[in-house]
């Protein structure tokens, strides 16, 4: 298990937050995701055997929110 933080741009409200959380939590290898609207950040717990930190960040970016892997 690995904790990953991702910066997320483009969210405007809690509905954006819930949309990202519910969509990304369904991805194989994503154990949990918590998104902060104020910090413009997402914290994920992933299984690196199933998904890389880069792909996890990319999955958020693919939804239309600019996402960059921080750590």
């Amino acid at each position, binding site marked *: 298990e690995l904790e990953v933080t991702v910066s997320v741009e483009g969210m*405007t*409200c809690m*509905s*954006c937050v819930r949309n990202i959380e519910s969509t990304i939590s369904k991805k194989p290898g994503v154990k949990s995701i918590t998104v902060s609207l104020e910090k413009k950040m997402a914290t994920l717990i992933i299984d690196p055997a199933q998904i890389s930190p880069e792909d996890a960040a990319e999955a958020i970016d693919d939804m*239309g929110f600019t996402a960059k892997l921080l750590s």
Partner: protein
Amino acid sequence: MASVYEFQMAMTCEGCAGAAKRVLGKLPEVSNVETSVEQQRVLVTSTLSPDRLLETLQKTGKECSYIGVK
């Protein structure tokens, strides 16, 4: 020839509209995207098929459907 396709999208805020613009904007075959949160509509000017555009819009995680050619 590019056509203008109309889609319904369950947008709740400008964040949703921005996401729609961004996912579609990544496609070089898309030349214009207009959104209206109020009317729940996305207008896309593209040479791609509406199926392909709908598939792309659905990446936003929002419920969407194809309406027709504008």
